[in-house]
């Protein structure tokens, strides 16, 4: 089993007993993915926006392209409710997963929700 440190912000915090912000540790089988983590937390993909794994951006509001991304023992995952703000000028040049980077290079990145 792997241990994943999870921080939840906004409405999704209820998955760990919080209202606004919550932190929890989740055990998952080896080779589990972010999608498995969301399922274990009882979160619908439609309520998830920004997702980080170890300070690397894996997802943005309005898309859901990170569910297949693998997790590793000891990872820190930050999950934000879909209504969370991150204007372009304050995220331009941050580190992204290869999959997200390829997506926004194709779909555009300036808008709050890529491809909008």
């Amino acid at each position, binding site marked *: 089993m792997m241990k994943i440190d999870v*921080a939840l*912000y*906004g409405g999704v*915090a209820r998955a760990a007993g919080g*209202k*606004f*912000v919550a*932190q929890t540790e989740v055990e998952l089988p080896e080779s589990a993915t972010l999608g498995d983590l969301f399922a274990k937390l009882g979160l619908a993909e439609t309520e998830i926006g*920004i997702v*980080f794994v*170890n*300070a690397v*951006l894996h997802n943005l*509001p309005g898309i859901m392209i990170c569910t297949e991304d693998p997790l590793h023992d000891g990872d820190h995952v*930050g999950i*934000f409710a*879909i*209504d*969370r*703000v*991150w*204007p*372009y*000028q*304050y*995220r*331009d*040049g*941050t*580190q*992204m997963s290869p999959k997200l*980077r390829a997506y*926004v*290079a*194709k*779909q*555009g*990145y*300036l*808008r*709050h*929700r890529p491809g*909008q």
Partner: protein
Amino acid sequence: MTRKILRINMTDLTATYEDIPEKWAKWAGRGLTSAIVFDEVDPTCHPLGPNNKLVIAPGWVSGTPAAPSNGRTSFGGKSPLTGTIKESNSGGLSSQKIAKLGIAAIIIEGQPKDGKWYYLFINKDGVKFEDASDLLGKGMEEVDRIMWERYDHKPAVIGIGPVGEILAANAGISVNDPENNPGRYAGRGGLGAVMGARHVKAIVVDDKGGPGVEIKDMALFKKGRKKLTNAILAHDLTKPGGGLNAYGTDVLMNIINEAGGLPTRNFSSGQFEGAAKISGEMIAEMVEKRKAGMTGHACHPGCVIQCSNIYPGPDGSIIASPIEYETAFALGANCGIDDLDFVAMMTKECNDLGLDTIEMGNTIAVAMDGGLLEFGDKEGALALFDEIRNNTPLGRILANGVEATAQMFGVHRVPTVKGQSMPAYEPRAIKGIGFTYATSTMGADHTSGYTIAPEIAGVGGKVDPMTYEGKADLSLAFQATTAFIDSSGYCLFIAFPILDIAEGFEGMVESVAGVMGWDLKAEDVVELGKEVLKMERLFNERAGFTNLDDRLPEFMRYEPLPPHNVVWDVPDEELDKVYAWVHED
């Protein structure tokens, strides 16, 4: 009825209403303050000397009926902090009231021959110069309270705290909010010292009976107003109950921290272990738990976004308003302090003394780096405000900001550009913001480069976020758009909905066009913004600034920032492209 320039001469204590000259007729807000400073202030003057001026201007739509979130007042002059031109704008009560008196701009020039201090009372009948000797040394909380006792109609109170009186380079200009708290600040760049150098402690504005704002094409204005309002109310970030409304700007704290871009302990790390404790989510939790204060507070009448807050203490009494993301970063994470109550108490001190919270928090962080205090020493940090209030030598150093303090404490890690310290986004981790910090005419400033729709920015929306290709053009388009919005009187946060909702952008343009009687197109926004930037850039050049000043501090080029362990590696020639057009035809 045409707009007038109100020129206040403090040397001979006269006030004259002048017709607005043709060369300034199209400008308002930042465009007008920068045009007047460009035309009337010698770029080589000392900012605190007799030849600098303080210019105050509401925006194009300020004071118009029900234009959404139009509450910004622009303040301009030569900055004592940066030595550049400066425009700093604030929410609060002032812009709508100045505009409704038919005033396009207030120019304050000269210095009293008798060395006395004055406050100004402005209403429909003119200007009164009143003795301010009983206000000297008083904080802005008391000044605001006294003015509302002294005058009817809940006037706007623009004022400086004790640090403005000692002409400190980190003195901001306070504007009261609808509850008459002094939390709205034209904080950046030390314009409070420019006001203090004119010996003006406060400006009270009562618009009762004023002529109001002329709207040349009411139908177009109303059409634009409706579109813009609808966009604000529909967008995820700005709608009622959306991220900004529910949690305030501090909703960014956890996001930027998770990304590894939260400047921590004087810009030595990109993550702070205590970030969640000083985040917008925690503000909301405290408001709920303590059954006092509020989120979703409006900083001026007519705001539909309402991103401000009123923060309560453990006993339910109010500590301060507002706690912004920038405030919580500077006085919190960057000082290693994870206690929101202490962040709030320091914010209260800043608001009362008249200090910009960003510069002040960064100043404490630099002093901590220099050994004055340990990082995380919240009691020690709070006690530093007593040094400032008591006007001790240490207090005077701290009130002059990051660079002055870094020099006194032998610190090489100085997070400034052109003398102004950086806001809450680490440019080593979030490289795009570094273009704006480096090249802005204002020094390191997070509000000088807001996003514009890709089709209007001319970048097609598919900029590769991991290369520098096209970034200079993009940064210029952002800075130009921001200069336009800063001229409008609208809050910069309308930039979020007008980026994503095309009708919202049209609405902003049409509402401005309606007020001014213009045939204004979307593409004119960037061009008008560039005219403002050009004046500002040329002023700075004539003050002695070159492209070598458009650089981030050296330590960012060689100190890797955890957790990504990245340095600032954008080539200088990429930065130089941003303003290369200024001397081209």
